[in-house]
């Protein structure tokens, strides 16, 4: 329920700010805000959120072979 609120909230905030910044011709800022807000909304989505990439999961895949090699 709380996650739903955050998901909708962050998407709305992203879209509103996107158009607000576009009007003031800060195009790159607008695109960046929209991308970040979509990324944030992804974390709060019901089933996809648990599988959405986090630094922990990505680094686990990247570095666990190296870590196993050192700890062997």
């Amino acid at each position, binding site marked *: 329920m*709380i996650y739903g609120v955050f998901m909708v909230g962050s998407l709305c905030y992203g879209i509103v700010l996107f158009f607000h*910044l576009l009007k003031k011709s800060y195009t790159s*800022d607008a695109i960046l805000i929209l991308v*970040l807000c979509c990324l*944030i909304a992804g974390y709060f989505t019901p089933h996809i959120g648990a599988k959405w990439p*986090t*630094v922990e999961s990505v*680094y686990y895949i990247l570095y*666990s072979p190296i*870590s196993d090699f050192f700890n062997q």
Partner: protein
Amino acid sequence: MAGLEKISHIQFSFLLFGYITGFEGLFLSEAKVLQQDVWIANVVNVFMGIGVLSLICYVQRQFPHKNLAEICNKLMGKWVGKAMLCIYLVNNLENVSGGFRALSMFYTTILLPNTSADVMILTCVICSTYAVYIGLGTLVRMNLVVLPFFLVGFLTTCLFVFPEIQTNPFLPPFQSKFSEIIVQSLHLFTFTFSELITFGFLMSRVEQPQKIFSSSVIAIIMSGFYMLIITYLTLGSLGIDYIKTSTFPFFSTLQLVKFGEYLERIEVILIGIWTLLTLIYAVVLQYVFTLVLGSIFNIKKKKPFVFVVGLLFFAHSCRSFIRTADHFTYGDKIFPISSLLPCIIFPILLAVFTMIWKRSKETIRGT
């Protein structure tokens, strides 16, 4: 963010001290492995910290009017510079999520077992986002107010722990293997002075840049002493076997302290101070994240991004390190390796590129 105000070198070094001591003192995982030889890891750690600090200070001194992000772009080129800064940002996010999760885990274990971790993380994020919004000047001044009380309280409490010491914590010496000492020194460095790169991004905001190195070295040495005092008081009063099994050994040591019959549970005050210092840790990380993000993407309107970065930190922390066992395994195995690139290799690369740049400038001037 309220302006880009300058801070003094004393405020900078106090922030460094609070940042480092606030977080590491609670788990003492190196002491669990090395026990009485942990002083060797601490000394190696202090030297490594001073080494990394000298590299970053050297780079900053060559470019007195640029911040470290601009220096990185200038030395490494636009795209490689941005890539390195992005790697730093990912490390920053990893750190802050670990910090928020550790804080909520501590509260869930010790005080509030029925409160959801997400609620605690949300409270911390609201606090840190507001602090970032107010600006660096206010943060360092608040830190300057809190730290002397922390130090006085901590030293007084240590004096009262002293009578509880039952064994000599330094004996028997040199029982650990050399490889264990190296691994644990690296582990300790990862959780303490590897964050100096974060402070590197704040160095351009200090009014007297030539004094940064000397005051920061004092802060690093004092942090080293602080870690030694905590570890050996715990080893001497709790004993080696207990320290291996306890999750928060220093907290358990403090529970032994009683000022006569009328003042007990002194560890509660230290919970409050530890919470505050961990929040300062998170605020500094979030502030630098916002600065570096602005530098990578040339953001012109910074205010909306302060809120969005806070939201990102909350979202990411809610989905990271959910199981405590995973968190500890990650901290032991993956985190020391993942922070090698942004925290050790990045400063070394910057220093090497600075030396090459300086030499080419002198060659051009000479011809």
